């Protein structure tokens, strides 16, 4: 171990003093200090946008349930994983293009979401929030275990033969691009649904004021059920696009879950456009952090930004925008 940290006291302090600035936020010590060329910078930019879009999409379902029901759905990532494997299995068995099967994954997850709501959330919707946390955590354990027992934990990849476009020296991977396009369509569709339909208005009304909604005759338990179903369906959509560009494992949901928490808070509770702004912020920090900072230091930056936003603007960067 001795090459990993100095063992004697004097050295320890000296290396601590030296190491902190160079290791935290310092430029890659091994790379000469110079800005990469424009093509490379443009490449980072493209990846940041693509990644941000996917993070935004992943956060949609979470922010919806959070915003309307005030429930933190810990099973969100696990729901994504269910959709990933459902899509992959359906596509492999039927030979149908996964793109055509995405609606199927969404429908399946909607039903699963409604089921989970009725069995576990509805009975304790008025209980303290920590109870809902444990319940959704229980759902997470169940779903992840089932997927793992059925499919094993080897990473699996959907062979789509997708390549990448090259535009002016910048590569755009097809898988991520399609995922982003789907994300934008999903955002628009959900937004229209919430703005233009009766159910959507009822959901927004409930999000604004649960007690008030009850008084004006909105069937709040029904709205909750629909909200949870739609939230799960959005998790399904997010899960269904992941295999387009990434190999999948049963534990992949956990990583997306943490990011989604951050995105939801950055963007503002229940705000859909906010989810995308939050997603882009995280996408940019991750890509440029990986490009210019050492190791996984960018993660520290993400949580610092997260805490800062929580403290200074707890309503989020675009808080309340969806209400308008």
């Amino acid at each position, binding site marked *: 171990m001795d090459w990993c940290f100095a063992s004697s006291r004097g050295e320890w302090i000296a290396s601590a003093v030296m190491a902190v600035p160079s290791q935290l936020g310092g430029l890659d010590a*091994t790379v000469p200090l110079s800005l990469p060329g424009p093509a490379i910078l443009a*490449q980072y930019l493209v990846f940041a946008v693509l990644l941000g879009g996917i993070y935004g999409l992943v956060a949609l379902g979470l922010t919806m349930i959070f915003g309307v029901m005030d429930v933190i759905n810990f099973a969100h990532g696990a729901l994504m994983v269910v959709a990933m494997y459902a899509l992959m299995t359906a596509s492999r068995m039927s030979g149908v293009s996964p793109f055509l099967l995405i609606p199927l994954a969404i429908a399946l997850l909607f039903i699963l979401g409604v089921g989970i709501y009725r069995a576990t959330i509805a009975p304790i919707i008025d209980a303290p929030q920590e109870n809902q946390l444990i319940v959704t955590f229980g759902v997470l354990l169940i779903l992840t275990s089932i997927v793992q027992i*059925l499919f094993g934990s080897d990473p699996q*990849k959907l062979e789509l033969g997708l390549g990448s476009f090259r535009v002016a020296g910048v590569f755009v991977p097809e898988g991520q691009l399609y995922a982003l396009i789907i994300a934008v369509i999903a955002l628009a569709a959900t937004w229209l649904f919430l703005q233009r339909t009766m159910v959507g208005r009822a959901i927004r009304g409930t999000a604004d004021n649960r007690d008030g909604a009850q008084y004006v005759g909105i069937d709040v338990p029904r709205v909750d059920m629909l909200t949870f179903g739609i939230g799960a369906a959005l998790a399904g959509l997010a899960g269904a696009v992941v295999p387009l560009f*990434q*190999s999948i494992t049963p534990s992949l949901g956990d990583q997306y879950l943490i990011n989604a928490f951050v995105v939801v808070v950055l963007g503002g509770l229940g705000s859909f456009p906010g989810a995308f702004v939050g997603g882009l912020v995280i996408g940019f920090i991750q890509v440029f952090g990986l490009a210019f900072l050492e190791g996984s230091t960018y993660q520290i930056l993400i949580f610092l930004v997260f805490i800062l936003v929580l403290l200074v603007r707890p309503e989020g960067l675009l808080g309340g925008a969806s209400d308008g």
Partner: protein
Amino acid sequence: MQDQQTDRFSRRDFVKYSGVTGVAGVLAGCTGSGGDDSGAGDGGSGESGDSDESSGSTETESAVDEVVIGSNHPLSGSLANTGVRMDQAVQLAVMMKNEQGGIESLGGAQLRTISGDNQGEQELGGEVAQELIDEGANVLTGCYSSPVTSAATRTAEQEGIPLVISVSVANSILQDTNLNYAYRPQPSARRMGIDHARLLPNIVRDAGQEIQTAGLFYIDISFGQSIRDTLREELPANDVEIVAEEAIGFGDTADTQVTNFRDADPDAVIATSYRAETIELLNAMDNQDYRPPILAGCSNAAMNDVSALEQMGETAEGGFGTNFALDPTSSRAGDVRTRFEEEFDSGFDANVAMTYASTEVIIAAIEEAGSADPDDINDVLGSITVEDHIAAMPPITFTENGENENSLAPLHQVQDLRDRVVAPEKFAETDPSL
């Protein structure tokens, strides 16, 4: 200490008799094609056919004509893909020894494997080790994840049962401790880094090509950082300058990292990661139309795994890797590989090879001890020299602290999407092609 030993009525049995396993039985029927996960317990699917029935029965207890090896691996959780195969490697080694007539020095005593699932959790390392000991294990092997192995060494030490580590790379497991019952045939992370930094530049330069710069791609956990730290020291010592270091986390894509490599343009990219991240690396290389002149893996199981290589495709072709490997000069090694693939219908990778070799060390020790007594076996392990094993390594013999004195990580190259050992010369099966 009396309370350490619960009475003969073991815990698992207690639960069994309370009737819960009936449910498990039903569920077993449901898993269907996922049957390769059934490694727990008594040998699972591999038992059918020609193998003798004694290795399949867990209920019969007779200490006289049987020696029990406890296999402590992650059979569920995120490490299960490798853990299950490692467990199968133990079972296969035992099965093949039994087919050859069992332990000669014990009058043909049969070996039996009992398996425990540590889920890759530190809390369960010692717990599962204890269960296996309570169920009668005379010697243990495990545990893959290093904190888990470390927890298991504690229990092994307290109970006086030898533990031969199957795979666990962390340097400190043996180096910073004084354990009397722990042995590690495999090279540590440091050893692997040193071998890689020496063998790779040598072979490239011998072929008349140059390697002056390298980029490191590593998974940002203990395993990746340990190798990275060694390479940071050892590559410059072999005149290779590190021009980029790129970390990847679980579940991430490798797009930005590959862009960084494109920008830094090293002669070699050396990847230290698990299978998923390695696949992401090559996928991102494909997407950005980039392939470094030399692609290599250090302690990267994906580079030794035929199914992973097929997933990664052409970009992996010609890539190098340093890892434990099968000895290609031994015909037995080839037989083991074939048998494993037939028996369990799953890929044979470096971790499987190393686990098999570790089990061979255990078997050799039992044979030499001529006893099932853990202390006798432990005494032999302290002085044993195992010549006949399937790993591409000189004879295995342990130093004072339980490390293999002759541990070696050979260099192999992916040729026709199979891993072929190319260095050191003693074990090379083919010439490198550059």
